[in-house]
């Protein structure tokens, strides 16, 4: 790990490859699901297939983004910190595509129904709030916004914890009969959030010296 943190003439290229690799890995599921739909392998309701997969994909992106800070503390590897903004933006992208697939593939772009559904269904309201939150964080993820916000940037971006909670609530409300999948994600989320508890957060950097 140490070699990564040292300055080397090849350093810039290496980070570029790492970032591009993460980009492709995050894009790959979308390409795979599109390929499945294009090959009629997504079942009789391809829109719903995309909707559900992209939704779960977005949750993955959010969980992965929130893994990066504890992983950096644990390993001191610069690579994790370098992809935090990218993965956060992927979470926003997935969430946006999730809403778009709902509007396009489930409601058939019936805008009046989208309006009435958003007002009527609590799980959709919660999902929309989470998406708006992610959009807000995405919009303030650039250098210019970081500079302008200064000290306020960090507390603002801690909203991602609340967003994770909202996403899980949104998911919880959709479940019909078996909580297993939801419980797995909730447990992962709890584990990731536990690393933010002050005693745990203080211990993480010490673990890496061993």
């Amino acid at each position, binding site marked *: 790990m140490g070699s990564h943190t040292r300055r080397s003439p090849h350093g810039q290229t290496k980070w570029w490859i790492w970032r591009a690799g993460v980009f492709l890995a995050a894009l790959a599921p979308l390409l795979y699901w599109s390929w499945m739909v294009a090959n009629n392998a997504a*079942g009789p*309701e391809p829109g*719903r297939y995309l909707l559900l997969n992209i939704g779960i994909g977005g949750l993955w992106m959010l969980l992965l983004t929130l893994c990066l800070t504890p992983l950096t503390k644990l390993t001191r590897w610069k690579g994790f910190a370098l992809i935090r903004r990218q993965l956060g933006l992927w979470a926003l992208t997935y969430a946006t595509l999730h809403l778009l697939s709902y509007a396009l593939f489930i409601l058939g772009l019936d805008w009046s129904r989208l309006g009435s559904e958003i007002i009527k*269904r609590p799980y959709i309201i919660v999902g929309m709030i989470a998406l708006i939150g992610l959009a807000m964080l995405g919009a303030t993820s650039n250098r210019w916004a970081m500079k302008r916000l200064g000290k306020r940037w960090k507390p603002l971006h801690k909203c991602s914890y609340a967003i994770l909670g909202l996403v899980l609530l949104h998911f919880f409300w959709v479940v*019909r009969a*078996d*909580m297993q999948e939801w419980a797995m994600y909730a447990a992962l989320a709890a584990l990731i959030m536990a690393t933010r508890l002050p005693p745990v957060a203080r211990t993480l950097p010490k673990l890496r010296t061993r």
Partner: protein
Amino acid sequence: MLIKIAKPSDLHESDVTPESIYLSRRRFMGGMAGLGAGLALSRRVHASDAYTDVPEGNAPPWLQEKISETEWRSVTPTDPDKDRIAPFDDASGYNNFFEFGTDKRDPARHAGSLQTQPWSVVVDGEVNNGGRIALEDLATPSQFEERIYRLRCVEAWSMVIPWLGIPLADIIRRAEPTSNAKYVRFETLVDPEQMRGQRSSFSIIEWPYVEGLRMDEAMHPLTILALGMYGRELPNQNGAPLRLVVPWKYGFKSIKSIVRISLVEEQPLNSWQQIAADEYGFYANVNPEVDHPRWSQATERRLPNSLFNTNTIDTLMFNGYADEVAELYAGMDLRKHY
């Protein structure tokens, strides 16, 4: 005089054949049987002609024989545009059967572990002639009929599926219900060894899966027990070897892999009502005016659909079978009794 101008998209009364007509048609077909023999065409050939994309099943000989003697297309929806029969792959690859998992593809993946032969059904409760009955004996006295029905899922999608089966009324009459029999209660098999969904410790459903009908609903000529679909036996994921089909109710009423039929005095507590009574009632009649709390029931997506054509159509009262069944609910508040 009432003048009604029908839109071409409207469903016609002829969509569903009334009992009196299909009974007379049965006599007609009997008369035609001689002609059929003259043309050296077995009815089995007719069936396989209609469903050429359907893989051969593995029905035991007695079932194969029952299928070959089916009265084909005894009830059919006739809107050729909307009510197109779903491809077999979709009807057998996109299922809710939580005993085998919660994903729509899980039942097709995992239901192969279910042993459907031999199979027996317990008929008990308020009956004079109950007992454990082998499936073969349960089904044999009745003639198979093919019923092409719309299936409307509570999740707002629908398919048109050609079932093969016998009227539930046949079974109930043979059991000789007592005057105490007010409802029919059904149970699905419980066997975690064969049904992996029942091994999940996170399942909200208490096994066995239970469903119920009021006696008049159960005796209605549209209510059938299906042993086959698409001219062959049921695939396991579709509820082999014996499932209920009640076409004017949401799909979850159509309990699968039945092992017990009980005639009872009290209204049974069906599984979904037990889980979420505010979302799923006992009657579960398809009703575009009563929303599910999480989505509208006014429309449905007729499957298969495609990415940019959701194939959304208006949901019809009682799934389009109102002429046949509305009178069962005369005077009832269907917002309360959903």
